[in-house]
């Protein structure tokens, strides 16, 4: 009945307006940043401030897709749940058929393919979600991938999605150096978020993905320590000037 109309159609000047609107929805979502080090991957997210009566533990933005792959997202949380579920299923399905754990690029391509499908199907709208996917490839190198509502995907050394994308990306471009060790990578991630996140370190979640190890969420106290060190360094610099 009402399924005879495609929602995503070309505009006269060659744009997919719905997809661009979806990107706008992503820009409204809370910030997520991913940084690749020499042998480590770090994801950082801005947590949406929870209401007083809300249990903050139920709002998790960094999720495991498989034992060796993690992802985070920016945009419509409910849409992301669908993608995450599909990705999790695909990981197990891959292992069922091939006995090997799925590759990071493979699952990224799958998620991107799913997002693209919804831009070219009848009766559906695109996912209002961009994702950052981290994991180690078959050769053992850390990989960070990003997908967006159009179905594009690419590999990054460091990337940011969500509402503070511009300033954080500028910060990363200025301060990123190749082959950082774990400490430097974590510090860069936290530093990039602290500038833009309102109400500071309490609303930041940091996750570290090491090779062949389960994901580790950095503790509150450790994050607070690092943030304090930044603030003291900033003060010192200002005093010197």
């Amino acid at each position, binding site marked *: 009945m009402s399924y005879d109309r495609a929602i995503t159609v070309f505009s006269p000047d060659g744009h997919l307006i719905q997809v661009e609107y979806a990107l706008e929805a992503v820009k409204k979502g809370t910030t997520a940043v991913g940084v690749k080090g020499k042998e480590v991957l770090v994801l950082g997210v801005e947590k949406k401030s929870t209401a007083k009566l809300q249990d903050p533990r139920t709002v998790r933005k960094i999720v*495991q*897709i*498989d*034992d060796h792959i993690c992802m985070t997202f920016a945009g419509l949380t409910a849409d992301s749940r669908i993608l995450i*579920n599909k990705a*999790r*299923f695909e*990981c*197990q*399905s891959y*292992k*069922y058929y091939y006995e090997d754990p799925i590759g990071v690029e493979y699952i990224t391509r799958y998620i991107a393919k799913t997002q693209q499908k919804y831009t070219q199907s009848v009766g559906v709208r695109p996912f209002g979600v961009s994702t950052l996917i981290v994991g180690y490839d078959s050769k053992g190198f850390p990989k960070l991938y990003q997908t967006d509502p159009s179905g594009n995907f690419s590999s990054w050394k460091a990337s940011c999605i969500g509402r503070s994308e511009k300033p954080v990306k500028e910060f990363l471009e200025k301060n990123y150096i190749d082959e950082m060790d774990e400490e430097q990578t974590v510090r860069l991630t936290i530093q990039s978020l602290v500038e833009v996140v309102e109400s500071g370190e309490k609303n930041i979640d940091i996750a570290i993905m090491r090779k062949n190890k389960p994901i580790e969420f950095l503790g509150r106290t450790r994050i607070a320590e690092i943030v304090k060190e930044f603030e003291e360094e900033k003060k010192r610099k200002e005093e010197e000037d």
Partner: protein
Amino acid sequence: MDSLVGFVGKNYVLIAGDTNAGRSIMRLKDDFDKLVPIDSHKILAKSGEIGDGNQFCNLIIRNVSLYRIRNETELTTKSVAHYTRRQLATAIRKNPYSVNLLLGGYDKKDQKGSLYYLDYLGSSKKINYGAQGYAALFVGSILDRFWKEDLDFEDGLELMKKCLREVEKRLIIGTRCFLIKMINSDGISVVEKVMINSKNKNEIEEEN
């Protein structure tokens, strides 16, 4: 014909399976591991058609993993047994899996081991001790007599070897080699790979 023997002890589960894989009169493989780990603390011991066993166990393992990733928690042995039974029961009247299973697992929450007997028709029963295959005919009475609740590991291993010795002695098809695995709070470990030679009536050679 496959032999599987299992029982529950004090905070562990012991499962043993013979290591033969054959087709009609030919032994294809004599180091075949029939005790498949489903997750860190559960073993599915399979007997019957080799292909069906592979496919079915694979299916269970993948779905248990999916549950774990989705819900960030592991299923209990009881839940896995019920899920497995459900898969067998829905398949029996459509595309049956010719597999008989022993499911052994250790649950950290209860700090107890449990053992389930499942067969291809969709039966499932929680048991303290049991066996699949021809072994069941021989070890049933031994376990009836000697199994006690909360057996220590050493006593349990002795009892298991007693059972396996009997299987080797009485089963006309040569099932000399058995693999014994244990599940406890630390997870799954291979206890021994045992070669039983009934010529030395009371001796068992251990092959590691």
